[in-house]
């Protein structure tokens, strides 16, 4: 254990948690608007493939990220139209979206397996990067890491401080009342779903463009489900969401570091379970929140 460098571990933690954080913050907004979209995994993997295809075709990772956000948002609109306009069951439609996304991404990714993508440079922050300890942990990452944290801060501000954010929460808490007050429930929800899709897409593209960086079928490997769980256990609060994502990322990075440091006495099976157990445990202990009142219920102006 003694030969694990905590600075490198913390730095790895932030990178490992970024895709989950991105997907989770999107889903948090969706759920705060009263919609349960279980299709996060499908949107993530679609984002991963769209991002990779656009980035290799254009040579620009930034266009790739834009393509990922657009592609996944477009996919989320399938869910949006089905659940908000045609009032289909949200759970079933969300699950279908995951399956559809996995299949669609495999199809789109044909011919991109094993291809090398363009590389994403780390953001060069002079001075800041040279601060001992904090420099390598916080200030030597690529721009998407900061973008993810920026989105979380923005969402926190939006939900708690802005008028539009309060409308969104009202829609999520009680859609009938919000409707009676003259808010456009369906429109607000569609926008939230599109935002959730775009964020999940960015998270997926972070995997295929930064972390790996390659395209493989099924490469999100359950990250979308982790994101969903973190939203619930974080009691729908952005601050706790960051905590949950870092905890998960931290234990994931730690278990690999433990194996790599040599001479660990803990069986590897337990190490591999650790991220899931730790995340669930801590967030359950912290849990005080309540789900948005209208979560998962269909809304129609006539009812």
């Amino acid at each position, binding site marked *: 254990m003694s030969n694990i460098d905590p600075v490198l571990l913390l730095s790895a933690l932030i990178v490992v948690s970024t895709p989950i954080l991105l997907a989770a913050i999107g889903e948090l907004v969706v759920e705060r608007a009263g919609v349960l979209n279980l299709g996060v995994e499908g949107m993530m993997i679609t984002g991963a493939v769209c991002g990779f295809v656009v980035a290799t075709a254009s040579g620009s990772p930034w266009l790739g990220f834009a393509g990922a956000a657009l592609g996944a948002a477009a996919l989320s609109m399938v869910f949006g139209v089905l659940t908000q306009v045609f009032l289909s069951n949200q759970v079933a439609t969300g699950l279908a979206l995951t399956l559809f996304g996995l299949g669609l991404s495999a199809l789109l990714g044909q011919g991109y*397996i094993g291809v090398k993508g363009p590389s994403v440079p780390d953001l060069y922050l002079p001075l800041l990067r040279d601060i001992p300890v904090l420099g390598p942990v916080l200030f030597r990452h690529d721009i998407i890491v900061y973008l993810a944290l920026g989105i979380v801060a923005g969402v926190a501000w939006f939900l708690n401080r802005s008028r539009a954010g309060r409308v969104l929460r009202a829609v999520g808490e009680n859609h009938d009342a919000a409707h009676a007050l003259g808010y456009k429930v369906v429109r607000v929800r569609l926008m939230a779903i599109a935002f959730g899709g775009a964020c999940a897409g960015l998270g997926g593209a972070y995997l295929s463009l930064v*972390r790996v960086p390659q395209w*493989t079928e099924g490469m999100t490997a359950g990250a979308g489900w982790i994101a969903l769980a973190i939203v619930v256990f974080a009691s729908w609060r952005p601050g706790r969401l960051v905590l949950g994502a870092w905890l998960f990322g931290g234990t994931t990075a730690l278990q*690999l570091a433990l*194996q*790599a440091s040599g*001479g660990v006495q803990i069986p590897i099976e337990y190490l591999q379970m650790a991220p899931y157990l730790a995340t669930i445990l801590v967030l359950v202990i912290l849990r005080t929140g309540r789900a948005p009142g209208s979560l998962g219920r269909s809304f129609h102006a006539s009812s």
Partner: protein
Amino acid sequence: MTIKKLLLGATAAMAVATGAMAQDDKTKVGFIYVGPIGDLGWSYQHDQGRLAVEEAFGDQVETVYVESVPEGPDAERVLTQMALQGADMIFTTSFGFMEATMNVAQKFPDVKFEHATGYQRADNVSTYSARFYEGRAVQGLIAGEMTESNIIGYIGSYPIPEVIRGINAAYIQAKKVNPEVEFRIVWAYTWFDPAKEAEAAKALIDAGADVILQHTDSTAPQAAAQEAGDVITFGQASDMLDYAPKPRVSSIIDNWNQYYVDRVGAVIDGTWESTDTWAGIDSGMVEIGEITEAVPAEVREAALELKDAIAAGEVHPFTGPLNKQDGSEWLAEGETADDGTLLGLNFYVEGIEGDIPQ
């Protein structure tokens, strides 16, 4: 209604079956791969073998393949389907397909099966594997000479004898040329998962490794090493030349082409028999990919010398005196390991730290 449907289905199935038999002059050869062909590693090389068969026999054969088949019940389903569609011979190209292969082989005694890296055989099931550990020994020598941190990272897939053999063979040679060397092993529990492999590589690099050996099939560890800078890697299963001259400084290439051509030829001639093949560098089944200029000339010479000595049978990578990890004697001075022990190898040699997961 249901009975009628069933009957209709049965007639259709029979029509398909007779159709398949009617064109039996063509030998149909099936392949199942554990990863995508595009892994540019293990499955890619098996597919090269399939293409070699097509080229060698032209119109005499028809090949079919299914990629990314999970090890488990799915494999059995895919194999059954292949056999039903009239395959005369099926190559199952991953250790984890062993049970599925044996089960399906029992149901289709007329179909010849070739299972890679397994140990169970039957009248219609052959096994074949390559002595990858010979190549690992050459990698170990280069790794031991090249490392400056004296920490060598090793990404293991599953703790099965084949992988453990590779770790031991590499360690023995590395230790020989560099007594200070230390191995760090991360088990990824996958043959192919670029995200996991990349993370494992990064964790090893963070732990101080400047040489990464991998027993997983994707190029993700190569990409991670390239990004980290001063780290060298070896191509696994395939040449992985995209990453040469650095990080990839050499590779083990599995060359199945000749074996596949020979075995398919045997089926066509009707001389096929159940056999057990375990071939090494001398037969060409294990190739050492070009050693790049990132490796100093004298190290390259030494590596090639070792390779030639192994091919000539003068050097066995497992030659005593060797102790087991717990310090007990395994091989006495000059004694070499027999194939039986090697096939079931389930312990580390002395000096490697950590436990093999059970």
